[in-house]
């Protein structure tokens, strides 16, 4: 059986990749994808812990997080669509009407 800390390192790696992606990418769709990576890192953590403890709380939490990720993607893409209609760009550094 794979020990739990392997999963934790995997999840930490995914989390770090996600954070770096959010901070360095310019395209807002890719930023949104990086956020999904962070949420997936959380899910891996939760499921690994859930397996370790032998209770299902973590898996239930993971299902809620997947649902939330879907809702977030729906709202996020809707807002991106509204933004793109008015501005014809998806690059984060061209969002300059409001000073960052």
């Amino acid at each position: 059986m794979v020990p739990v800390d392997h999963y934790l390192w995997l999840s930490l790696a995914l989390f770090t990749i996600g954070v770096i992606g959010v901070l360095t990418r310019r395209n807002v769709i890719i930023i949104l994808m990086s956020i999904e990576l962070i949420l997936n890192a959380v899910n891996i953590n939760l499921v690994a812990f859930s397996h370790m403890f032998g209770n299902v709380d973590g898996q239930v939490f993971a299902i809620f997080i997947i649902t939330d990720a879907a809702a977030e993607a729906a709202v996020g893409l809707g807002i991106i669509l509204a933004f793109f209609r008015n501005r014809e760009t998806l690059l984060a550094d061209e969002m300059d009407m409001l000073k960052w």
Partner: protein
Amino acid sequence: MQVPWQDVFEQTRRDFVFILPEAMLACFGLATLLLDFFLTKKEKSWNSLTAMLGVAFSGGALVLMYKMQGQAYAFSNSIIIDPFFIFFGFIFLASTALVILISVKYMEIEKEQHGEYYALMLFATVGMMFLACGNDLIVLFVALETMALSFYVLTGFLRRDRKSNEAALKYVLLGAFSSGILAYGFSILYGISGSTNLIVIANAITERSTRYGHGDVLTILALGTVSAGVFFKIAAVPFHQWAPDVYEGAPTPISAYVSVASKAASFALLLRLFLTVFWPVNLDWVVVMEAVAVLSLTVGTLAAITQSNIKRLLAYSSITQVGYILLGLVASVNSDGTLHERGLQAMAFYLFVYAFFNTGAFAIVILLRHKGVIGDDVDDLNGLIQRNPGAAVLMLIFLLSLAGIPPTAGFFAKLLVFWALIETGHTYLAVLSVLYILPAVYYYFRLVAAMWVKESTDPVRPVISLAQKFAFAAMVMVTLAAGIFPEQFLRFATYSLLIPFGR
């Protein structure tokens, strides 16, 4: 396995009483969406009435709970009904009601009168209420997202306005990012304890801190990620970047709503987590709180001085206010790690009155909105004393309160914070935060000077609609009453925070 369905139904029916305030809001939110179909374009403002009814019924349920006293657990300990929840519930409902009242005319001018607007506000309030009464990581996370997702949409509600689009996009990206980080912290907390229940987690952390001392990696990782997520939501420096942009771009009533209700809800989450789960390691986080509070004061004050946009100025000023509220949290931990009651009292009082005078300042900006003029430039305030003396006097009272000058509520709130700081031996912090009032007076009085001294080129006289009159009456009454007769408010604040957390 035989499932005792009868017992399950019985239990669920009993538990539903405890989420009556939230259930009311959710039902009326759905009703608003439904009734919206039957209204013609001219009748759309009736939606606000449905929403107000929802707030009123929810408030009624909350009053019933207030009368019952004590605490209760529901839904297998995942929800806790205590004075803390009831206190914050009243803050959320009051600010929702105020924002609905000041929205009606604004949305008419923007030609965006839709039922969804009011429904989303009620759904956001449902999220906030669950955030204050959740006793379980899953409930807290879902509640936070319910609130946040509603706010993302509300921020971008002016679909044709480019600023509104941009503000919403920035808010959704940074908000989702911070929720992700917070969720990571939650997963570590689950890993520490094997449960999502806050009480079980608190016990597990107590056990770990006695076994491993201060250097426990998992606790620090959880503490770091959770604080980063929460600091983002309350817009504390260094996680404040989104706030000025969102406040400037969002429809003005929503700027007020984000700065007041969402902030109070995030403070409820922060208090719930830090006073239960992270309480055993309080000497570790209190240093971080100190640093973040002082940074918020500094950055908020310095940035506010140069702003020419009122909404941006109020955004930076609210970052400063967050600094003061966090100092209240610093002052609620004695140097030996025990609870100091005055600090919590100060925080509760501050959050309560802040909801009123900050909404008031934004409401004046709403008054300045008319065809072609957004009304958020400092020059738009010019000569307001001639154009509408009442509005100018109201703005003066709200600004005095924001700056912390007697006889307003803001003064007494700040006084409580300083007092608690001195009592816990943070005299240097108290002196420092008093000094920050001076530049604050300068930038608030730039607005006052614009209203009184400068001549206006704009001939339009702002009028206050009936709904706005009600809102202004409530806001100014609380701002003055809590400043002159604070005892009653203080007793309420004490009741709400000291009973659940006074140990």
